[in-house]
């Protein structure tokens, strides 16, 4: 079984986000970039499937500028076998990413595509579901457990009220949630080994996909700032304030 894993390069989750003064976006120059945290979980799951003998090959795919190579290297150091960079210097929105993935799926014919449930930059939570729709494949979103069977997978999902288990036919698309696993840190020897693993670069134009943005960002602004309130010395004062000042209890 071949597994394709999506790895997006995003501003590291620890970075304090600054909106650009001209309101065109957020500051990304000289900012630490990392693999989208959900994608680390997706890579970990794919590598575990390989270690368990369920998967035969794990291919990490990133789409964006040349620097996405670094993100792919991280996936290779975690245990992916090879990488594909779909190179584009223009913005790629979820529908475009999904269409590009569809083109790669047609080339690589994987049995499973794993993505993060959400990219922590655009917070769209769309790409995996779109890809499944475009392929006409089943989807298993917000995964907290993956069990691959014979031609089917039993998938447990985090939903509003708790957990739900579904059975999907293979091939399928899965998007992973936080509780699926704890991603490993790449060891130094594995980082060295990863340097020798192949990364294929595909120019976005060569896949014959219309990637023109559909959404136009008119402006990006700071959210309204919340002011810190007061510190209270003890519990009775707190209750008094909540009763008589804020009037919420």
């Amino acid at each position, binding site marked *: 079984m071949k597994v394709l894993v999506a790895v997006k390069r995003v501003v590291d989750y620890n970075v304090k986000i600054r909106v650009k003064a001209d309101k065109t976006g957020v500051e990304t120059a000289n900012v630490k970039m990392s693999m989208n945290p959900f994608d680390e979980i997706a890579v970990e799951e794919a590598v575990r499937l390989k270690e368990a003998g369920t998967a035969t090959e794990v291919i990490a795919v990133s789409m964006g500028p040349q620097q996405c190579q670094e993100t792919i290297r991280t996936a290779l150091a975690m245990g992916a076998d090879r990488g594909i960079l779909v190179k584009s210097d223009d913005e790629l929105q979820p*529908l475009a990413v999904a269409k590009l993935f569809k083109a790669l799926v047609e080339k690589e014919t994987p049995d499973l595509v794993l993505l993060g449930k959400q990219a922590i930059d655009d917070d769209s939570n769309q790409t995996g*579901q779109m890809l499944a729709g475009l392929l006409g494949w089943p989807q298993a979103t917000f995964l907290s457990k993956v069990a691959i069977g014979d031609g089917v997978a039993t998938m447990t999902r985090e*939903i509003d009220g708790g957990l739900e288990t579904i059975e999907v036919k293979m091939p399928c698309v899965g998007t992973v949630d936080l*509780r699926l696993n704890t991603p490993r840190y790449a060891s130094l020897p594995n980082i060295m080994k990863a340097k020798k693993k192949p990364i294929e670069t595909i120019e976005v134009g060569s896949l014959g996909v219309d990637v023109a943005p559909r*959404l136009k960002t008119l402006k990006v602004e700071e959210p309204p700032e919340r002011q810190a*309130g007061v510190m209270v010395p003890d519990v009775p004062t707190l*209750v008094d304030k909540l009763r008589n000042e804020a009037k919420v209890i």
Partner: protein
Amino acid sequence: MAILVIADHDNTAVRQATLSTMTAAREIGGDITVLIAGENCRAAADDAAKLEGVSKVLYCDSPLYGHHRAEPFAALISGIAAKDYSHVLAPADTLGKNTMPRVAALLDVAQVSDIAAVVSPDTFVRPIYAGNAMATVQTADTPKVITVRGTSFDKAPHGSGAATVEDLPAGEDPGLSKYVSSELSSSERPELTSARVVVSGGRGVGSMEDFHHIEGLADKLSGAVGASRAAVDAGYAPNDFQVGQTGKIVAPELYVAVGISGAIQHLAGMKDSKVIVAINKDEEAPIFQVADYGLVADLFKAVPELEAELAK
């Protein structure tokens, strides 16, 4: 303009998140149709027909839609939407997040996720980077596929109105997936995303056994219980209690954060609450920067004391 609202419901009535979605639809303006799909959900269709501003309810009752599996459900929605609608809206809850991007892909249109405001029928404001920035985006696609952030819109009222309920035949089963089972956290407490009071516990609570301190306080305040990611990851609370960027978005009248440091990913899910109380033993904890009332204290002392004081 003709707007299709995809209702989330519990078979007897529409959920609170659907009411917020209705308000967003009314702000866009136009003729509003609500789709109720499910299994044995006639009562929900009748409930939807009473909503203020609804002109028609499409009612599709079939085992195929019982668990809102994405493949048949998205096929149904895209089939309806392709015909006559300028907008398709759903709540940004599990139902909407799972289904709507698939609908958008089937229609070859972009989706605008999790809108927090309607600027005009084609322009919306949405949070990005865990709510650290607000983007105003415009879409030229038709129909416009949108999910709506529940806490950003008032709940549409039920009116005296009685919209027509139109039966819709079920579609085909693509046979790609099967519902197996679910484990739902059952609770007498109010639902987290619409509760008037939410009490959340973090890693500071220390264990699953001690999480009853949080539950006890929530019960004293007739509130819902929430948790930080760290508390959920550590198994103190179930996954559906998680508040934050990648969990639930809440904006109650009163939010009490206990033993939570206040990481941006947590703040993303609760900073629109009206009044925020933080109890933390570390006076430097970032949560105090957004709290209206901060108490530096050991929670194991402060929470029982608070319960006693509230009982007075």
